[in-house]
């Protein structure tokens, strides 16, 4: 019997970035999947070995536009691991706040995209609407909606002043109410349930075999979460639950993410309360990094981000290895897509929240007269940040 191959990608209206799936089908049923990656390969490991540790933080931040705190955090954990560097407690809380806010906005982004993928655009618009206040909190705390440049070896770059905390808590209250509404609506929604329940199942054994991480693994019953397994920063000081479900289908992956948003809000609130009084500096000055090896990891929204550095006593890594969670999660589609109808394949592929590394932002805008207007945009952006600060701080 001849086999039909349906190509998805490398450029496809639904997948924003380049990746190529060859789906073998028998009638309507997917019988196999072959994945091609490499379209977004930018040689970060090669470049990083030619940068200083501080410069590399800015580089790894640009591996992904959504996980732009997870990569720098895992990288600074790895460098700190070489010399057992301790960080100030205030820095630990700030790192955790930024990390968890990133989880909330990333999960909301995925929730919106998942709705869009199944033709349920109401969910998409809802989720993205309430993602916006999160990005504005980011802008208030860090000065930017993405690429926050907050992490440093030994602490963080920027403090959250105690007087900034009460307005942030007020915004968080509003977000929590909206998130509870979205969580209830998503869990009770008959459209989502009938469309996603039992679709693209990844068994517990397959998740173990493929070394899956993050919500992909937790929806299949694997209780793995770096924040619990190796609590760094303030994770040992706050109270939260790791969400683990059993069925491994797309619906459980959605529910895991929605419930994680609620847990993340709890963590952010606890950290912000502590930041009202937590004393001390935000950065331990690290003068040098000795020769050795260090492993750093962080539970990014999509799962464990892993960074390994080998150092020789100079100011740059001898070897820097980066492994993003999608690298181990995307191959699980070989199992979860097998035997499902072709119409379900796209949401199943998207259910691991694949992160095709985002491109760097380097835009030069030219107006009708041929004059570069990038500086004007920068000024507009700075004005908006100031306006947000004034609005939130009253």
């Amino acid at each position: 019997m001849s086999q039909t191959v349906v190509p998805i990608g490398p450029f496809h209206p639904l997948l924003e970035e380049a990746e190529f799936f060859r789906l073998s089908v028998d009638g309507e049923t997917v019988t196999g999947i072959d994945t091609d990656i490499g379209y977004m390969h930018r040689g970060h490991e090669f470049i990083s070995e030619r940068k200083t540790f501080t410069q590399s933080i800015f580089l790894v931040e640009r591996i992904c536009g959504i996980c732009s705190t997870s990569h720098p955090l895992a990288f600074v954990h790895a460098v700190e691991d070489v010399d057992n560097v301790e960080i100030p407690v205030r820095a630990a809380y700030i790192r955790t706040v930024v990390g968890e806010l990133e989880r909330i906005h990333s999960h909301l982004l995925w929730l919106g995209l998942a709705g869009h993928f199944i033709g349920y655009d109401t969910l998409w618009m809802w989720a993205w609407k309430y993602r916006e206040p999160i990005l504005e909190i980011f802008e208030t705390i860090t000065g930017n909606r993405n690429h926050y440049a907050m992490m440093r070896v030994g602490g963080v770059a920027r403090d959250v002043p105690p007087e900034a905390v009460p307005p942030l808590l007020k915004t968080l209250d509003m977000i929590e109410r909206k998130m509870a509404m979205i969580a209830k609506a998503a869990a009770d929604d008959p459209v989502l349930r009938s469309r996603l329940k039992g679709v693209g199942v990844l068994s517990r054994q397959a998740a173990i075999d493929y070394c899956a991480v993050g919500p992909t693994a937790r929806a299949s019953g694997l209780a793995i979460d770096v924040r619990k397994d190796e609590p760094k920063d303030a994770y040992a000081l706050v109270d939260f639950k790791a969400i683990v479900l059993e069925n491994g289908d797309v619906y459980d992956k959605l529910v895991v993410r929605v419930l994680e948003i609620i847990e993340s809000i709890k963590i952010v609130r606890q950290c912000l309360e502590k930041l009202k009084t937590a004393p001390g500096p935000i950065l331990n000055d690290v003068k040098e990094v000795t020769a050795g090896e260090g492993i750093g990891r962080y539970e990014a929204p999509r799962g464990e981000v892993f960074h390994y550095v080998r150092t020789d006593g100079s100011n740059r890594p001898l070897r820097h290895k980066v492994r993003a969670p999608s690298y181990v999660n995307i191959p699980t589609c070989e199992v979860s897509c097998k035997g499902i109808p072709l119409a379900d394949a796209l949401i199943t592929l998207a259910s691991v929240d694949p992160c095709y590394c985002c491109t760097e932002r380097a835009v030069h805008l030219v107006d009708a007269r041929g004059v570069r207007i990038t500086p004007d945009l920068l000024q507009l952006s700075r004005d908006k940040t100031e306006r947000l600060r004034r609005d939130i701080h009253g």
Partner: protein
Amino acid sequence: MAEKDPILEGLEGKIGRTAAKNGRFFFEVADENIRDVARHLFIAKSCRLSTATATETRRGLEVLYHFSHDATGRYYCPRVVMTDRGHPKMRSIAPIVKGAEWIEREMAELFGITFEGHPRPERLLTRDHPKPPDRPLRLRRTP
């Protein structure tokens, strides 16, 4: 510094001296023992393979696997050293650990290491590329 650890029990004679720090265990393994070590860590002790790192050093090429023991938050990292820079080769652990398939293909592509027994020894990043780069992460391009 050698340190006894319950996860490494049963591997005596198959692993070299263990350097332990902050719950990370680095040890050398001969090529002929890497599959036994992978079987022990992945199947018997339920470790998860995070990834693997290839590095070119003065001794030759090294492949360092990173197994995470999630229940304790510890890392076990067997290291295989290949001194033949011209034709580095070692046994693949992908037949035992499915999750090693992509990373071994990537190391083969970027460093020119042959993984014997790999179920699918193809390029990962530049399959079908008209001019694939030649081992771009090697310090010396020509053997």
